[in-house]
Each structure stands twice: as C-alpha cells, then as structure tokens.
C-alpha cells in the first residue's frame, strides 16, 4: 500500500504550484471581501477534489490493471485511495483551521466565536467527506467521467437531507441550544466515520469483482 500511496503523492506533486496559486487567490479573496470563512470552506473541498486528479491519472494510464499484476491486492488498491482521502481531508481541515485561527488573531472575525467558526468548518468538512464516501464506490465502479456527474447529485441529496432536518426541527419547535448543536455535530461526525468504513467495504467488493 505504501508504494501506491507514494505514487499518488508523486502524481499530486505535479499540481503543487497550482494548489499554491489557488490558496493565494482564496486568501486574497477572503481578505478583500472580509469573508475569512470562504477560504476555510473552499480549501477543504479543493483538497478533497484532488482525489479526482489522483484517480484520473491512474485511469488515464490504466495503472490499476498493471497494479493488479504487482504484489498488490484489490484491498490494497482501495485502501490506498481511502487513506489518500483522509490525508487530503486532514490537510484541507488543517489549512482551514489555521486560516480561521489567524483571522481571529488578526481580529477579522467579530461576528462569531472561534468555537462556532470551528464547528461550522467541521460540519462542512464532514459533509464533503460524506459526499466522497458515496462517490468513491461510484468512482471505482463507473470510472472518473461518470463519477464526476454524480458529484453534484450527491451534494444536492446531502444538502436536501440537511435542509429537511433543519426544517423538521423548526416545525417540531426544537430550539437549537449549544448542547444540541454539539450533539448534532458529534452525531454527524459519527455518521461520517461509519459511512467511511461502509464505503470502504463496498469499494473493496466492487474492485474484487472487477475484470481488468
């Protein structure tokens, strides 16, 4: 698995400059528009979208077929992509938290507390993670081109469920207290973690059945 991960990171290294430019533009945007949350929210999804780049390189080169002739199992192939997803998720989240922290230190966020900003970032990041948990089996099953079309659909469905949940709470007259928000974030994160393992198992099943 280590070798496959090195390959993915070598592939992504090629768009390192591009990533720095994107980050710089986002920082500039956040400063000039006085909306620091834009950077943190966008950088997480940008990092996770690099999954598409990594898997597209493999697909273009037909690498997975070759990999299956190496001392590598279908499980290794899938596990590498899920580890990469976690690395990208972690990197995006770290960049987001750093930016939020700096903007608070610089006094640019007076509207909400640091905890609230962090919680908002976490909820959004886990939303993205859940979207990719749904998407990864689709990527393995249908390939990158078709999976891209599913991305929008997946976000629409997840946002729909979230909005539905919020509306339901309003209709039921449930007040959003700090404790309830923290409990919801915890449940949301737990759902994302459970979804991660379920998605992994589904992807392993798909790749095992695949003919190359």
């Amino acid at each position, binding site marked *: 698995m280590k*070798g496959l991960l*090195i390959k993915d990171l*070598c592939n992504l290294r*090629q768009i390192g400059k591009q990533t720095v430019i994107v980050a710089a533009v986002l920082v500039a945007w956040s400063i000039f528009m006085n909306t620091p949350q834009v950077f943190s929210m966008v950088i997480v999804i940008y990092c996770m979208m690099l999954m598409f780049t990594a898997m597209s390189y493999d697909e273009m*080169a037909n690498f997975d077929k070759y990999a*299956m002739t190496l*001392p590598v199992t279908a499980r290794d192939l899938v596990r590498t992509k899920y580890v990469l997803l976690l690395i990208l998720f972690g990197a995006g989240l770290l960049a987001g938290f750093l930016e939020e922290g700096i903007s608070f230190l610089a006094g640019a966020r007076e509207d909400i507390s640091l905890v609230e900003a962090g919680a908002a970032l976490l909820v959004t990041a886990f939303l993205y993670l859940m979207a990719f948990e749904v998407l990864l089996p689709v990527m393995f099953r249908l390939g990158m081109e078709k999976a891209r079309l599913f991305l929008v659909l997946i976000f629409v469905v997840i946002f729909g469920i979230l909005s539905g949940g919020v509306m339901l709470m309003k209709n039921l007259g449930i007040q959003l207290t700090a404790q309830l928000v923290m409990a919801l974030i915890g449940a949301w994160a737990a759902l994302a973690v459970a979804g991660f393992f379920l998605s992994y198992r589904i992807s392993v099943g798909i790749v095992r059945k695949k003919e190359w």
Partner: protein
Amino acid sequence: MEYAIEVQGLTKHYPGFTLDQVSFSVPAGSIVGFIGENGAGKSTTIKAVLDLIRTDGGEVRLMGRKNGAAFPEIKEQIGVVFDESYFPDNLRITDVDKIMKSIFRNWDSAVFFSYCRRFELPDKKIIKNFSRGMKMKLSIAAALSHQTKLLILDEATSGLDPVVRNEILDIFREFIQDEDHTVFLSSHITSDIERIADYILLIHKGRVLLFEEKDTLLDEYGIVRCTPEQAKTLDESQIAGIRRNQFETEVLVKDAEEIKRRGDLVVDRAALEDILLFTVKNEMEEGWRQ
C-alpha cells in the same frame, strides 16, 4: 520437467468470443512465443493467467501454485509488461524506483537504474515526454528489477521500430541465460518470436492450434510448391494448410523430410509466419466447410 505456467482447460465466454479449453505448459527456463492473429485470444489467456479476469472453467498454475497470481508471494517473482506503459504520465524514473521499492520486497534499485542507463532513459523527464520505445523500455526495466523469475509480455514489442525491438529481444536472451528464468511472450510479430522462442504456442479463435518446440516445428514443416494435381497426391494427414493462386498451389506439410524423399516435389523451408498463415487459413476454411 518443472513448469512456470500450467494451463488446463481454460475457458472464458464473452459475447461473440470464447476462449475454449486452452491447455499448455510453459517449461521453466524456456522462452515460449505465443502467437495468433489479433483477437485470437492471446490477451484474454494472459489476463486469465494473471488472474485479471474471472474464468468460466479450467485451472491455472503459476510457479507450481494453483491460481498463483492471486498470491503476492508468487507475484513477487513475476514481471509483467503489457502493450503500453501503465505508469502515470507525471512520474519520473526516480519516482518509479521509489514506488516499486515499496511494493516489491526484492526490488533492486541498482539493477533498475543500470537498465535505465543502458536504455538511455532520461531521469529528469516525466514519462509523458518519453517516446513509445522509451516507455516500453521503462516497463521492461521495472519488470526485470525485482529478482524476476517469470517474465510475461503481452504484445510488448508491437508498434516499436526494429532497432528498439532488437534491443529488447537481446535483453530477453540475457535474462534467459539463468536456467530458472522463463519468458512467456505474446506477439503477432512472428519474426521476433522466431528469433528468440524455444517453443511456439499458436492460438486461433480461442483454441490452441499447436504447441511445439520451435526447432522441431521449423525442421519438420515445409512448403511444397506444386500444381493442384500434385497437391492431390499428398497424404491428407501430411497437410497442415493449403494456399492456391493462379500460378501454383502451396501446401504446408508436417513432415518435409518425407516429401523430400519422394523426389518429385520441391520443398521449401517454412517460416513461422508461413505456419501461422497456413494453419489459420486452413482452420478458417474448415470452419466455412462446416
């Protein structure tokens, strides 16, 4: 005799094509040339041997182990080269070394870089900027750098110029100097196979037509150029294939020496390409007759 690859009754059905009860054994320490026209079933057979497709019947043993390609410890000993390089375009040869070092327990960077130097592969360029020949050389260098015992090549020399092909064939000859080493090489370039193979495996429409030692095949087979009337005097069991044109009839015979002893017919040497063309054509005609 030890066998590097043993295939028994291998069957795989696709819509419009069936790999039909394919059986053969590749002796360890030999080069087996796997020939057949496009779509004959060479790649399907290789994919089945490498466990890249699910089969509908039959058994494959690699390095003595049933369904060996399913086991990483067996795959450690196998080098595979397909008709194209499957390394992503953004990598450099130093990246390939790093990656393979973490995949193969026996990866030998010194051997890999010595092949890269020998093939004059540029270490600064990304693979995207390599020529097709360079990409294939890189794939071969990678396939040979982990104490490989069995090299499986699927059309690895197709589309390469004669100079590069010659260079690659030399590498295979060197590789086979070690008695433990085996090469299973599929190609429709029969001249390459004729130059290096010890055994010839011919497949047509998913069925094995012949599996024979190359020297025996080339010594025994011959082409009789004669009139249609003379062709009729030949024993049916002798005829492996027949080709007619307005000037003469050419008959591929299985025992050239016996025909020579008759004294009334001219028997020419049959090249591997002739054997392929005659045998495949004969099978096609028999198919039409049925």
